[in-house]
Every structure is written in structure tokens, then in C-alpha cells.
């Protein structure tokens, strides 16, 4: 049972001052084993905050990140799943399913986590899963102005992943749950 927080596109301080208070009260250290961050934090203080939340922090570079040393993409294995991470501004057209599928094949991962669109998405596409945790602060993007703050928490347990989606809608935290399983590790690497 590994808890992985997928979060990103905070755009602090340029487009948002901080995480919503209700999110901050829920995100306490000691519960989460990994953080995968799509990027666009943008400043070091946010990096430190996330690092304090969980020492296993994986970040990829967003186009507004101050620290240019973050990698463009990152892959990691957690339990039986291979996860890929990329901010997404590099993949054009932005948010396009087929282009993201190409990236997924390139990275050879089961779950691809990207951001940039600031819109939560979770769908299965060509044998893999793509998750966009949205923007944790609700910062506007060049695509949408009306953004609900959101982030994702994945519970990876054996061959099963339970995805909890946390969204702040009208001041209340709404939690949704998505379940999916991997059929097997070897032959049919399909996720459904």
C-alpha cells in the first residue's frame, strides 16, 4: 500500500498566493510515500513545502519554474506500476490524447502523469492510463480561466490502483474515487 501524491501547476506566487486552506489542512507529513509533481511550482519555497510533506519528491520542469535543473521527464517504478512524469507543455497539441500516448509509449510506462492544462483528467488510452492532477491552487492557464483547485492521491496496492481525486468546488472539498487494475505484469501489459 503506497500512497502517491500527484500535484502540480501551482504557479506560486505569480498566479496564486498559496494552496487553498482546506487542502493544506489535509496534506500533512507522514501519510504520503511519494510525491510526483508535474511542475510550475514555481519558487523554491513551494519545493521546500513539498519536500517537508514527503522526502521522496519527483519533479519535472514546467516552463515557469525558477529552478531550471528539474528534468523534462521522469520515470519511476512503484510496486508493480511504472509511472511517467512530464509537465506537458512540451507535448503539442496541449492535452491531445494521441500525442500524450506517444509520450507514454516513449517512456514505456503504465501511468503517465502530466499537467499544464490545469484540468483534471483520468482516462485509459491505448493500454495505459493518463492522469492530469490539474492545478492545486486553481491558477488560470492559457487554455482555461475557470479552474477548480485539484490534486490526485494514488493508492498503489499490488496490481490495483485506487485514485482519489480531491477538488475544491464552491469552497467544499469533493473527493472522487477511481479504481483500476493491471491484468498482469508480464505478457499483456494492458491496464483496464
Amino acid at each position, binding site marked *: 500500500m503506497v500512497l502517491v501524491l500527484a500535484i502540480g501547476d501551482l504557479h506560486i506566487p505569480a498566479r496564486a498566493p498559496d494552496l487553498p486552506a482546506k487542502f493544506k489542512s*489535509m496534506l500533512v507529513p507522514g*501519510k504520503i510515500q511519494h510525491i510526483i509533481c508535474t511542475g510550475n511550482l514555481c519558487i523554491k519555497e513551494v519545493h521546500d513545502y513539498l519536500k517537508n510533506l514527503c522526502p521522496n519528491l519527483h519533479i519535472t520542469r514546467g516552463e515557469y519554474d525558477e529552478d531550471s535543473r528539474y528534468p523534462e521527464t521522469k520515470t519511476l517504478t512503484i510496486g508493480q506500476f511504472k509511472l511517467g512524469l512530464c509537465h506537458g507543455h512540451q507535448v503539442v497539441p496541449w492535452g491531445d490524447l494521441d500525442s500524450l500516448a506517444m509520450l507514454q509509449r516513449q517512456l514505456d510506462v503504465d501511468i503517465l502523469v502530466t499537467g499544464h492544462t490545469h484540468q483534471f483528467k483520468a482516462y485509459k488510452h*491505448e493500454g495505459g492510463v493518463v492522469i492530469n492532477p490539474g492545478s492545486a491552487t486553481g491558477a488560470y492557464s492559457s487554455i482555461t480561466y475557470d479552474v477548480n483547485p485539484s490534486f490526485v*492521491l494514488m493508492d498503489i*496496492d499490488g496490481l490495483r490502483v485506487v*485514485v*482519489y481525486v480531491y477538488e475544491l468546488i464552491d469552497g467544499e*472539498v469533493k473527493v*472522487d474515487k477511481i*479504481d483500476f487494475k493491471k491484468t498482469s505484469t508480464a505478457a499483456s501489459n494492458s491496464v483496464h
Partner: protein
Amino acid sequence: MLKCKLKLPQKTHLPFPPKLSSLVSGSEGKEAENAGGEDQGFESGKELETFLPNGLGLEAEFEISQKVINLEKLRRLSSSGIPVGGGLRATIWKLLLGYLPPSRDLWEKELSDSRQKYSKLKEDFLLSPSEFSRRKDEVLVTNEKHADLDAEASFERHDVSNEDHPLCLGKTSAWQRYFEFTEIIEQIDRDLDRTHPTIKFFSAESPVSKKNKESMRNILLLFAKLNPEIRYVQGMNEILAPIYYVFSTDCDEKNSANAEADSFSCFVRLMSDSVDHFCQQLDNSPVGIRSTLCRLSELLKANDEELWRHLELKNKVNPQFYAFRWITLLLTQEFSFQTTLRIWDSLLSNSFGIQDMLLRICCAMLLCVKCRLMKGDFIDNIKLLQHFPEIHVNRVLRIAQDITPVTSSFNQSL
């Protein structure tokens, strides 16, 4: 008449017949067995030792093969030491702790009931929230869209805002309760890593030893969850270790496979006797550790006032400086592992209870090193008592049997 002096054969120089007290204070800290028993006087030599346990072993085996076991007799036999090997010690400890009833016919039922109860407890308390929610979902969802292999689709979302999720802060949340125990689990794991680091059973890098640690962790965690007033306290791992070891090394396969369940029950029984010592709030109460330490002082005073005077009045060596660990951890930290098991045979088989024998043994330990204590100052005494030397365990236990109990039942200092 022979003119030359008769040369008497030079016997090995026997020491003066030892005074009573020096019999007690004994050899100067050297391992009595190694020293070859030169100044042992008429201590039972090694040869005698090997005969006794075998004889005892047969008697004990005979006793526990009876349909109805005479516990009093078993106690008497066990207090002289249970022989190692076979499942004798495991079975006898289970009888002495009241886990197995004296009537053999009821054993099978008792064991299977108890083991089943343990499995259920584990399921109720030790399941991770992921596993728990998975099982709940499996019950609700019968034949969901497993046939749906539509590659391009958004996932179905279930609203759980009012139900449980990992970041839920509510008191009734299974996740929240799970996280409350993370710190305790970490503490337990740290302590288990430090338990008997020299013994392979506990500390090797092998899968067997990892499994042992996992079993012990389950037992300690379950105990902590079932006893919220005391939770887990450092040291409980040391009390569990001998029990789990003895039950796991039972030659009966069914018993050793169920060592975890049996150890849990016996650990709970043992803890119910000592738990007051672990509870900080009870420290100053009549049942707490301070009061027990006072009783040890009283016992020493009643049995050897000279030593008591020297230790407590002259050198101000309070029992809480050395006996705290002896008492709370039931002497598991003072001797070699096998010696500890032998001591526990005596502790568990005492008719007046474990605590009574425990204090007697502590007192006997002090008497055994009296000579060295009398010669030393505060620092010497503390050093000696905190790193107790290896001594002939049977001698300590014999002396413990002969300790005069304190007759007055009221402690003035209360």
C-alpha cells in the same frame, strides 16, 4: 621405623571450609563453570547437572502425558529447570500460563478456538485500509465492467466525499486510525531490530528471521491496538522474545506453525501480570514500579542487613538504578538467552506468582555478588549491577528459593 618423613600426598589445596556468607557471595565474578569449580566447595558439579534434567525430563514428560495434569506437581518439577529440546518447554509454559487447560482432552478445542480468535483479531485490527476498502468494494460490485475493454474512455468516478479516503481527518476514518499507529509501528520495528542482535533467529538477514520479526510485530501491534491505555512501551519486545522463540522451536509442527497465535495469547497473559510496571501513571502507586522496588529493598534488608546497609545507606545505591530493568523486563537483559529461559522456568512455575519469584531472584543476585559489592563504592556497585556478571544460574535459583520473605505486609513508606 622409617626415619624419613612420611610424605603425605599433596592433595589439591582445598580452601578453608567456606563460611556461610562466602558460599553465597561465591567466586569473584568469574564464570563458575569455566573456573572448574576449585573453590566451589560442594557445589553440584557439571556431571550431576546432566543427570538431573534427564530424570526430570522423563518425569515431566510423564506428567504432561496424563489425562489430567497435576499442575502443582508440574510446577515443582519445572522449577528445577525444563530440559531443552523437544516441545517440552513450550507445552509446559503453555500449561503454567494457563493457556492450556490441565485436562488433555480439552487441548485440541482450546488451541483451535484460540488460534481462530487470533486470526479474526488480526483481520479486524491489522488490515491496511487499502485492503479493507478493496474487500468492501468486492462485496458491493459483483460483475462490473470487466468486459468493457473500450480503450478510449474516461474512468467512472465514485463520489466518496462523505466516505473514507486517505486524507480524511475524521475520527471515525479507518485511514486516520491507521496513520495514528504509524509512529507506534516505527517504534516497534526499531525495537525489534535491536532484539537479540546476536541470535540468528531474530536478527539474521534470512527470510525466516524476517518472518519472525513480522510475526512479533503483529503481536505487539495488536496488543497496542487492543490496549489503548498502555499501547506499546519499549521493552515489551523483550518480554515477547523468549515466548515466541520457545513456541516457534517446538518440535511439533502444528504448534510451531501456530506460534504467532499461541505467543500472542501467552504474551497477553504474561503482560497482565506485569502491565502495571509499564504504566507511567502508576509509577508512584502501590502497584507501580516504585513500590515494587521498595519491596526489593525490604527483602534485601530482611535477608542480609549488612549488605542492605552498605548498598543503600552507605553507598546510596538505590534499587531504581539497577533493578528497574531487572523487574520490568523479567531479567531478559541480564543473562545469556538460554540462561534467561532457565530463569523463566522458575518464574513461571512459582506457586506464589511470577512477581514473588522475580523479587526473590533479584535479591539472590545481590547476595551472590555480595563480596564484590561490599568492597566497592557507589560507582563500582552501579557498574557491577548494571552489567551483571555471568554466574551459576542454578546457584542463584537455589538461593532464591531460600530467601526469607518479608513478613510484614504493610510498607511504612507508602
